[in-house]
């Protein structure tokens, strides 16, 4: 559904992402991992057209991403950012209905249709926010608010979800809920997700593929088992780690080792 071919993205002269290729197929979850400043967010912003690549090409459903109008991209790719910045009081319903913007039959104005409301209600129950419709966004807890942000992305009915550290400010239980929701969506075999995360264990457990980045370059791309080897992680993060198998899921389990043993 989305293919990036050798894309390079510059900020001024500085190359933030260099020659990265990535292919997203329906039903897959791809985790992007790497140290701060590795170019993960820049890559994600390139994949939805916010930042234009200086070299390389991005194809969305076989056609160049550049050839789509903004509304066309928004119907196919949804982004979940770290945190919503709320300066005006909006209700959860109003916020999530915002995801229906690209589907408005009246162009960029008008009111939401019955179908818009129907889709939104479905998303609210999927994200366990039934009954929250008329609550104000800035009165919600961090976990609830982040679920509403995910809900707005799901309300776009886009088949590709791009998530930029969706769990950064959440506690353990809420992190798992978020990723379970995303994984559940992708198990329909139509939706795919690209998730930036710092939690290597979550990446190992939920992702089909892992893209490891450092200094704007792709170091490795493959299954969690292939990518998350101790040698690579030491090389990329400069930290000794222990990698074994999770006793229940069998996914690679990464434990940082602080200090020198014995």
């Amino acid at each position, binding site marked *: 559904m989305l293919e990036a071919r050798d894309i390079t993205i510059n900020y001024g002269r500085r190359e933030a992402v260099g020659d990265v290729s990535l292919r997203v197929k329906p039903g897959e979850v791809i985790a992007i991992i790497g140290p701060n400043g590795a170019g993960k967010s820049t890559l994600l912003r390139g994949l939805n057209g916010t930042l234009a690549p200086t070299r390389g090409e991005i194809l969305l459903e076989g056609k160049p991403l550049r050839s789509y109008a903004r509304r066309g991209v928004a119907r196919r790719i949804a982004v979940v950012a770290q945190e919503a910045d709320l300066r005006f009081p909006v*209700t959860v319903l109003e*916020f999530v209905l915002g995801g229906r913007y690209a589907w408005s039959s009246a162009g*960029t104005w008008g*009111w939401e249709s019955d179908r818009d409301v129907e889709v939104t209600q479905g998303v609210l129950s999927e994200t366990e926010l039934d009954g929250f419709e008329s609550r104000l966004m800035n009165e919600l807890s961090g976990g609830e608010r982040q679920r509403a942000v995910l809900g707005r992305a799901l309300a776009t009915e886009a088949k590709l979800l791009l998530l930029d550290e969706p769990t950064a400010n959440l506690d353990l239980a809420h992190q798992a809920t978020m990723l379970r929701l995303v994984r559940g969506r992708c198990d329909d075999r139509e939706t795919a997700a690209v998730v930036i995360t710092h939690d290597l264990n979550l990446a190992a457990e939920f992702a089909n593929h892992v893209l490891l980045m450092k200094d704007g370059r792709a170091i490795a791309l493959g299954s969690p088992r292939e990518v998350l080897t101790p040698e690579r992680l030491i090389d990329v993060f400069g930290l000794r780690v222990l990698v074994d198998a999770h006793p229940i899921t069998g996914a690679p389990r990464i434990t940082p080792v602080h200090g020198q043993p014995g």
Partner: protein
Amino acid sequence: MTLRRSLGVCGLLLLLLVGVLLIASLVGSQRLPLSASLCALVNGSNCGLSSEQQAILFDIRLPRILLAGAVGMCLATAGAAYQALLRNPLAEPYLLGVSNGAAVGTMTALVFFGAHEWSRPLMAFAGALAATLIVYRLARGRAGATPERLILAGVIVTTFLSSAIVFITTLMDATRIRSFTFWLLGDLSGTTASLLAVAFVAAGIGVGILVMNARSLNLMMLGERDAFDLGVEVGRVRLIVFAAASLLVGASVASSGSVGYVGLVVPHLVRLSTSSDNRVVIPASALAGASFVIVADTLARTIIAPRELPVGAITALIGAPLFIYLLKRGTSAV
């Protein structure tokens, strides 16, 4: 917020506006008889009013009230638009320096093209647009525009343009200076038919454009990047809305000077009593803004009648305390 509720809110505000309009046309230094005046307003005939009373009602009071209404519409909706676009509940044409930009434009037109009345609203529009773009650029730091930075940028532009205004004033002859000082604070007494027409046409076009972009503004006020991700052509909407808001401010300043705080008070009250949805905030602010300025101007011309206050003094008396309250409360809520 649904279409039905929005229409309901606007219907109520329209009734309020009609009531305010009727009452305002009756009160003043000369009180007019109620039933005969109502009859004259509805039928357009004399209904037993003396010719002097008719002249007061139709030639003096009504044009002034209509202008007040148009100015209120322009400023309140422009304020709502700036607030949504700059994501700042404190944004207001007067405080951002946009009104001063329009004032510089108007005065330049008066000094250099005095014979052409049409040059005033045009230059006012150009001045407002220039001031808007300058404030926007100044407020956008590396870390994005914070509410405080925007207000500071507004203060700087305002003081700079105030010096420009003082400079232009010195180019005028002394007899006109007093009327200009009055005009700068917002003065609705100098209405002409063409200025009234300009104000109404600008209000119609400007409010129309803003309503058409209200749904995009709903997303942009929650963050430009999120709006872009959700399909809003952010750059285009920003330009269109800035132009429409500048048109509104330009038309109102060209016809009545800088009436302050209308764009702060009215959208705030509308949001407080309905919702933040711009599809209701903008049309409701248009109607409520018209009522607000008509009431303020009625007070301005009756409190110390037969002498008058500038209407801007009344709106600032109401608006400045509200601004302080909003600032103290933090800008995160409304």
